[in-house]
């Protein structure tokens, strides 16, 4: 069951059988820039970066991105920076969230994507972002970035506490910025 999400759409991270999700992964994939012939390595690589910002009551508490791969509490982990992209199908970067271990005061986790090398999403082929239930590999939601317009960043989605469980809301707000810090003004209104 994959939901192709649209802006503002919320899905609850309850499993079909009623159990709550325990571990989710935000995957980001994109196709590497095409090679030129000779001196192919001089091709301008496309480096997209996935980040996750942890909020407690609208205050950023911790950030997981390519320079801080694990949140201090260990609940959110980035699998590592990919600087060039892949074939445009699998996840090139992923952020794993162990929802059970998220500290009690963290109530929202916002996922963002930035183009570190500055290409806009118009120039990037086959870029997508998806949310996967880590326990069984089932894709919960997918977002296609391609055709996202002349922007270099996007606030993808947020995972937030609802009652005892978690829910996810697709956001899809475009923005501009090189790293997540540039996005803070765009993130705050969607919290």
């Amino acid at each position: 069951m994959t939901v192709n999400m649209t802006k503002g759409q919320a899905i609850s991270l309850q499993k079909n059988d009623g159990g709550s999700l325990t571990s989710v992964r935000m995957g980001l994939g994109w196709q590497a820039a095409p090679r030129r012939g000779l001196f192919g390595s001089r091709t301008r690589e496309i480096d997209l970066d996935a980040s996750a910002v942890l909020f407690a009551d609208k205050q950023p508490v911790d950030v997981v991105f390519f320079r801080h791969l694990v949140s201090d509490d260990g609940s959110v982990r980035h699998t590592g920076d990919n600087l060039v992209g892949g074939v445009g199908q699998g996840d090139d970067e992923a952020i794993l969230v162990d929802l059970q271990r998220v500290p009690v005061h963290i109530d929202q986790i916002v996922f963002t994507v930035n183009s570190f090398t500055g290409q806009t999403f118009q120039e990037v082929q086959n870029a997508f972002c998806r949310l996967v239930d880590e326990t069984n590999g089932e894709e919960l939601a997918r977002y296609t970035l391609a055709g996202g317009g002349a922007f270099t960043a996007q606030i993808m989605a947020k995972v937030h506490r609802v009652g005892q469980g978690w829910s996810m809301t697709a956001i899809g707000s475009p923005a501009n910025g090189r790293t997540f810090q540039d996005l803070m003004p765009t993130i705050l209104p969607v919290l």
Partner: protein
Amino acid sequence: MTAELTRGQNHPLPRARLEIRVSAGTPVVAGATLGDENGKVHGVERVAHPGTPILPGLEVSRQAAADHRLAVDLDAVPDAVHRVSVLLALPAGGQGPARFGSVAAPFVAVTGLDGDEVASYTLTGLEAESAVVALELYRRQSAWKVRAVGQGYAGGLGELFTDQDLPGAHRLAGDIQDAVARALARSVPAPPARTADGDRSRPAAAPAHDSGTAAPQGTGGGVPPTAPYDTQGAQGRQTPAAPGQQAGPQPPQPYPGASQAPGDSSPTGRPSAATGAGPVDYSHPRRQHGAPPPPPPTAPPAAPGKPARPVAGDATGWSMEERLYNQVWGMFEDLARSAAAYRSAVDFADSRMEKELDQILSDPRNRVGGQGDAAREQARARHGQLVAQAREALDRDVAQLAAEAEVVEPALPAAYACWDSPVWHAYRVPMEIPLALRLGDLHLSGADPVRIPMLVRLPLERGLWIDSGRAASLDGSFTDSHEMRRLGLETAVAHAARLLAVYPAGEFTVHVIDPAGSGTQALAPLVETGVLAAPPALGTAGTADVLARLTQRVDLVQMALRGGAPDALPPGLDTSQQLLIVNEFPHGFDDRAVNQLRYLADEGPAVGVHLLLVADREDSAGYGPLLDPLWRSLLRLTPVADDHLADPWVGHAWTYEPSLVPSGSQVLRQILTQVAAARRP
């Protein structure tokens, strides 16, 4: 080139010094008998077994284990001996299997000291037998050969020995089983794959680190960073990569392959790169043998609704030692992160309450009636609720880690164990350098029941500084400076003794500089057992002499390495690792000596010369900032509990407590006596 033998087949042995490896899926007793040309064994003194593990030219394990390495030196075997029979037997009694037919086929391999396999043999087709002659090494026209025998005996060792004409066969069989039962009772039950003694080998294939000269140290994938202790605050949030384990109180995973014998899955493994003629040695410096690692211990199935019970060795690694190391580091990281989650939640709760209380205060409507009080009460309740939730999560994690520590601690090998651990009573001088060394315990306030062994990789990458400065200890009591100096040196002696104990005989040399001679009492265990290279150096002259020799050594080894000619070192140069203990630095040091010490601190670790300074930094205040780089280059430890160490992930201040010998215990002297005895040829 390995010959895989079938029953009855023989193969020439190219070398006299060999190792015989045994892998069985279950603990077995390994032994050997020495027979004459007719195969007759003349007496019990010709049988190597766990009760009498060492005979001339032969050494077997002291206890039953799933993996054995028997050391054989055929040149040292008496001339009258023409046949060495390697035998395996199942331990009698207990819950273990009683017949080889019910366990996986044992695998034996004859290897050179470099791990190169000469011949191997899988003992298939055994049924009701409980003892078996696996291999025979025999003389044929002054050369030795190996034959795969595989002769089993349903009547056990007694019948086996009778068959070899041994007088008193059955009594000896009984004695052996008694010795094994005693050893089993002593050993730690947790890791079933092997015992602490099971993986010893002679480090012949490791010139890279046993000579103490080559620099690179192996850090395999998934192994935590090698020098992660840092002074507080130096590490921030830009921790590069997450080491090892995943977060969270992971329930140990049952491992389905645990019952499979290591011999069943490609026992030969990768060829050792030590034989290759190429210039690049692709072998892992710490993994000299290509045999597959023993399977990790199996977690007992969890009771429904409860998390699985933790097991020792529940981490990745090529040996139990490496697994335990990774497990300890995993626990360290998990505790650090759990505590970070808790502290962050409490900080947040505090700041939120403060903000709310401020708001209440500034709202004029709250100045009348009980409205303000009610709002304040509510803010406090919200705070309390969040803190309680956070505390609950932390308590859950701490309980899980405490349970894990409870099973891990007794399973730790000597190098990782605290001094009061029983493994020190079963101490034997090791054949191999361990992966790491325990320098003390770490714990975190708020998570008190969990104590994490502080393990640092060997060879040491930084010198150690035992800070004998006058510090207020954590309980607020002041220890006077004289007492601190004594404690400092005592701690240094405990660390040095541990280093001496975990290095193979003769591969670790300790020098002492005690310029004022004030440390005589604390140094007594080292001096009296005779493990020091020379008596502690006294006075300025003695100091200068020791420093000059070590400086020269570092210089020589460096030159040889840079010149690409490590073989060109002068004969007689001691290639073992060197540790220099300096008491009461900088007492007795002139400028030249201070410079030499700084040189040793900078250049020494790469060529196997390490420092262990006992010093109060105040004493060298006269040098000004000149010595700051020296202090920074050393790992600061304290003789009393002190919270000065930061973890590499979130930078909590951990309380460090040195590993000290329990007062009144003789364990230190006993071990050092053994170390000294093992050095004598």
